[in-house]
C-alpha cells in the first residue's frame, strides 16, 4: 500500500502553477468549462496509480520529523531481572495474578488476593506508607523499607498492590511489561459494564478504509492551455507593487478591506477565510463560478435572461468575487459591500450594522456558504463532511463520553463540529512543567517563564477541554446500568480532526442572571506549531485506562488520524478594547512573514507582535495532506 505523505506546499503556492502564477508574471483570471474540473478531480482520485510518481518537489519537513511517529506507547527494553523473570516461566504467575486484579468503576486497578484484603508488610506489619510491593514469585508483601532485602535471585520483580505497576527491586525502578499490561487491560474490560456508543456513520467508516494514493500535480495538456488563453484576459499588475517601499517582496493576495461602518468583525473573519488554504484554492480554482451559478439560478427561477432583476443572493458567489478582487494585485482596499448586502438579504430581522461578535459571524457565515454550495452539488454525497467546501475544510468530529462514577458504565456520542470553543484555563499548567534549563535566556524571559504556572496557554485550554469533568451532584445523569441518576464524569475528545482547525477563546462572558457581559483580557499563549495527538480520542481513551500498552481503545487505532495531527498556524484574529467599543484585527502568515490586517490598512509586523497579541480566534492548518482514493470517479 502506498503510504506516502507529501509535504503540503508553501502556503502561497498551493494551487497548480499552470493556473495561477506568482506575481512576477501577469495573473490571469479565466473562465473554465465546468466539466474540466470534473476531469481534474477524476485525475487525482484514480484507484490505480500508474506511471511515475509526480511528487511535489523537495519533500522537506520544516522540523526534524521525530514527531511523525505515531504516538503509540513504545516499550523500552526490559531490565535483566525482568527478562530473567520471563524466561523462567514468569508468564504463569502473571496469569495467576490476573485473578487478583480488582478494578474500580473508573478503571483503577489493584492487586488483592481476595476483595477486602488489607496487605501488610511481612517484616514490619505496616500498611506500607505510600507503596506496598507484592513479590511476583512468592506473593510476599513488603513495604519499601524491607523490599530490597527480599529481592534475592528470582524475587526481584514485585507489583505495587495499589497501582498495579511492576517494580524491579534490584534496579529500584518501575518497569513495564506487555503481558502484565495486557492482563490489566483484560481485567478492566471485563469489569466495565457494557457501554453504549452511537456508531460513527457508515460514510465515515468507509471513509477511513479508503486507500491512500500519491499526489499528482495537475497540469494542462496543450488543448486545455489553448482554451485558457482564449477564454481569459490578463489582469494588469502594477509594476511598482511587486516590491514594497522597503524593498521586500509583497505578499500574494493580501489586500485591505474597507470598514463600511462598524464592520471590523466582518473584515477580520473575511481576511482569515480569504487565506484559509483549501478554501482559497477552492475559489481561486473556480470551483464556484459566480457567473455559472447566477445563470443557473436565473434559469431555475424562470424569466428572461435579459431581464434586469436583483441578483439572487448567493454568499458563495460574493466570496468568489471577493477572491478575484483580492488576488487581482490591485493595492487599493476592497469594499465588501455586495457581500454585506447579500448577507443582510437573508439575515434575521435583528441584523444591524452595530458591532457583532466575530466568532458568531464566522459560524453563521460557514452555515450560509454550506447552504449555497449544498444546493449546487445536491446530486453528490450529502452529509458525512463532504457536502460542501466549508465542511470539507472545517468539520471535525467530537466525542463525548459520560461515565457513571458508581458502576463505570460509559455512554458515548459523536457530534460534528466546525470549530472548537475553549474556556480559558487559569494557569494550572499541565504535567509538563516549565523548563529549568533555560540557559540562554536573560532575566526578563525567566520572569515570564516562571509566570508559566499562572499563564493561560492554548494547550492548557485544550487540556481543560479534554480533561475529565466531574458533573456536580445537581447535574446527575441517568445511568443505563444502574437505572438511576448518578454522579457522572464527562470527557470530550476529538475523533476526527478537521483540515483547518479554528479555535475560539471564550473571552466574552454573558451572565443571564445579572444581564451583563464582560470581556476577559487575559493573555493566552499559543504555539505556531501544534500537535493535536494528545487530544485525540485514541489518546484520551488510552490515558483513561492508565496508558497501558496495547489498550484496545475501542479498536480505533487509526494510523491516519495520528499521522494527521500536526498543525501550523496561519491566521490570528485579535480583539482589543472592551465589549461596547472594541476592534478586531487579523494577523496573516505567508511564507513566514506576518501581516497585520487592520481594516483597510495592511502592514508588515514581526513574529513577536503576533505571539504577544491577545488572541481571540486561532486558525491552524494541517501540515501534511493525505490523498485518498475516491469511491466515485467524480468527487468534490
Amino acid at each position: 500500500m502506498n503510504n506516502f505523505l507529501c509535504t503540503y506546499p508553501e502556503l502561497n503556492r498551493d494551487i497548480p502553477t499552470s493556473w495561477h502564477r506568482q506575481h512576477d508574471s501577469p495573473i490571469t483570471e479565466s473562465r473554465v468549462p465546468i466539466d474540466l474540473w470534473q476531469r481534474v478531480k477524476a485525475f487525482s482520485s484514480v484507484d490505480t496509480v500508474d506511471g511515475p510518481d509526480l511528487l511535489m518537489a523537495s519533500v522537506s519537513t520544516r522540523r526534524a520529523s521525530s514527531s511523525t511517529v505515531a504516538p503509540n506507547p513504545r516499550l523500552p527494553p526490559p531490565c535483566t531481572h525482568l527478562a530473567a523473570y520471563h524466561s523462567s516461566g514468569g508468564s504463569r504467575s502473571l496469569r495467576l495474578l490476573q485473578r487478583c486484579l480488582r478494578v474500580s468503576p473508573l478503571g483503577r486497578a489493584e492487586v488483592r488476593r481476595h476483595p477486602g484484603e488489607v496487605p501488610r508488610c511481612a517484616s514490619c506489619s505496616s500498611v506500607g506508607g505510600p507503596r506496598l510491593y507484592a513479590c511476583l514469585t512468592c506473593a510476599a508483601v513488603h513495604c519499601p523499607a524491607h523490599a530490597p532485602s527480599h529481592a534475592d535471585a528470582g524475587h526481584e520483580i514485585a507489583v505495587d498492590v495499589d497501582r498495579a505497576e511492576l517494580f524491579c527491586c534490584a534496579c529500584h525502578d518501575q518497569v513495564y511489561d506487555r503481558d502484565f499490561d495486557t492482563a490489566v487491560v483484560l481485567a478492566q474490560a471485563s469489569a466495565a459494564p457494557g457501554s453504549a456508543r452511537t456508531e460513527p456513520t457508515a460514510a465515515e467508516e468507509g471513509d477511513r478504509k479508503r486507500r491512500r494514493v500519491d499526489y499528482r500535480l495537475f497540469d494542462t495538456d496543450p488543448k486545455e492551455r489553448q482554451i485558457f488563453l482564449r477564454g481569459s484576459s490578463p489582469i494588469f499588475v502594477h509594476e511598482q507593487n511587486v516590491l514594497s517601499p522597503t524593498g521586500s517582496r509583497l505578499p500574494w493576495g493580501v489586500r485591505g478591506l474597507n470598514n463600511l461602518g462598524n464592520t471590523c468583525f466582518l473584515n477580520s473573519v473575511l481576511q482569515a477565510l480569504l487565506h484559509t488554504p483549501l478554501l482559497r484554492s477552492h475559489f481561486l480554482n473556480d470551483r464556484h463560478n459566480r457567473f455559472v451559478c447566477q445563470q443557473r439560478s436565473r434559469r431555475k427561477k424562470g424569466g428572461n435572461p435579459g431581464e434586469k432583476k436583483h441578483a439572487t443572493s448567493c454568499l458563495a458567489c460574493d466570496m468568489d468575487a471577493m477572491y478575484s478582487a483580492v488576488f487581482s494585485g490591485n493595492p487599493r482596499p476592497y469594499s465588501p459591500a455586495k457581500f454585506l448586502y447579500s448577507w443582510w438579504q437573508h439575515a434575521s430581522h435583528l441584523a444591524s450594522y452595530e458591532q457583532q461578535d466575530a466568532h458568531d459571524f464566522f459560524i453563521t457565515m460557514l452555515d450560509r456558504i454550506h447552504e449555497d454550495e449544498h444546493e449546487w452539488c445536491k446530486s453528490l454525497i450529502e452529509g458525512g463532511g463532504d457536502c460542501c467546501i466549508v465542511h470539507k475544510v472545517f468539520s471535525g468530529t467530537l466525542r463525548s463520553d459520560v461515565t457513571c462514577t458508581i458502576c463505570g458504565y460509559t455512554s458515548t456520542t459523536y457530534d460534528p463540529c466546525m470549530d472548537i470553543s475553549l474556556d480559558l484555563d487559569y494557569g494550572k499548567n499541565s504535567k509538563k512543567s516549565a523548563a529549568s534549563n533555560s540557559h540562554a535566556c536573560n532575566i526578563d524571559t525567566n520572569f515570564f517563564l516562571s509566570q508559566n504556572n499562572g499563564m493561560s496557554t492554548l494547550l492548557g485550554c485544550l487540556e481543560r477541554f479534554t480533561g475529565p469533568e466531574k458533573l456536580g451532584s445537581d447535574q446527575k445523569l441517568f445511568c443505563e446500568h444502574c437505572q438511576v441518576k448518578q454522579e457522572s464524569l464527562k470527557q470530550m475528545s476529538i475523533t476526527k480532526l478537521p483540515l483547518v482547525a479554528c479555535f475560539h477563546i471564550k473571552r466574552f462572558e454573558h451572565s443571564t442572571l445579572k444581564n451583563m457581559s464582560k470581556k476577559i483580557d487575559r493573555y493566552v499563549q499559543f504555539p505556531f506549531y501544534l500537535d493535536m495527538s494528545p487530544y485525540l480520542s485514541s489518546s484520551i481513551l488510552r490515558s483513561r485506562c492508565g496508558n497501558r500498552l496495547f489498550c484496545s481503545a475501542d479498536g480505533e487505532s487509526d494510523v491516519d488520524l495520528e499521522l494527521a495531527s500536526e498543525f501550523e498556524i496561519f491566521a490570528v484574529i485579535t480583539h482589543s478594547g472592551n465589549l461596547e467599543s472594541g476592534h478586531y484585527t487579523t494577523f496573516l502568515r505567508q511564507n513566514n512573514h506576518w501581516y497585520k490586517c487592520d481594516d483597510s490598512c495592511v502592514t508588515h509586523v514581526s513574529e513577536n507582535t503576533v505571539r504577544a497579541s491577545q488572541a481571540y480566534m486561532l486558525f491552524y492548518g494541517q501540515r501534511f495532506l493525505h490523498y485518498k482514493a475516491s469511491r466515485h470517479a467524480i468527487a468534490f
Partner: protein
Amino acid sequence: MSASENGSSSPRSQLPFHVFGDLLDSIIVDVASECHRIARLGLDRNLEEEEEELRLSAQARVASTSSSIEANSKNVLDIFGQTHPAIASEILECMNCGRPVVAGRFAPHLERCMGKGRKARQKATRSTTMAQSTNSNGSSPVSVFTPYSDANSIKRVANDSSCSSNSSGVEEFKVTFEEA
C-alpha cells in the same frame, strides 16, 4: 507539624497528621507513577517543542513591552505605501436604491435602505401600533405604548427622537401628530 517536638503530645493527637501524611504521600506516588509511565513509554514526546514555543512567546512578550506601542493608524503607511483616512472614502453604488454612498457609511445607509436593523424596525413598529390604537375601541392591548393619553406617547416619541441621530426621529414625531 511540631507535635513531635512537643513531649507531652499524645500519639492520638498525632494521628491526623499521620493520616494526612499518608494520603498526601499516596497521591504524590500516584502522580509520580503515572508520569514515570508516560515518560518511559515515550508518550510525552513533544516536550521540547512545547518548551521552545513557550520560550519564544516569553521572549516576544518581553520585546513587545519594551518596544513602544504601535502608532495609531492615522498616518501609517501600509505595505503598498498607501495611507488611509479614518472613514473609507471610496464611493459605492447602493444595490438597493442605486444612490452613491461613501464606503465608510455604507452599512448604516444600507441598514435604513433595506429596512433592517433596530432603528429601521422601530420606525415600522411605531407607525403600525399608532394606527392600531386609533382605529380600535381604545382597549386594544398595545404592548409598546399605553393608549391612555396622547401626551404620554408623544413624550416617548420625543425621547427616542433625541437619542437617534438621524432625521427619521423627526419623521416619527410627525406621524404621531397626524394619527392623533
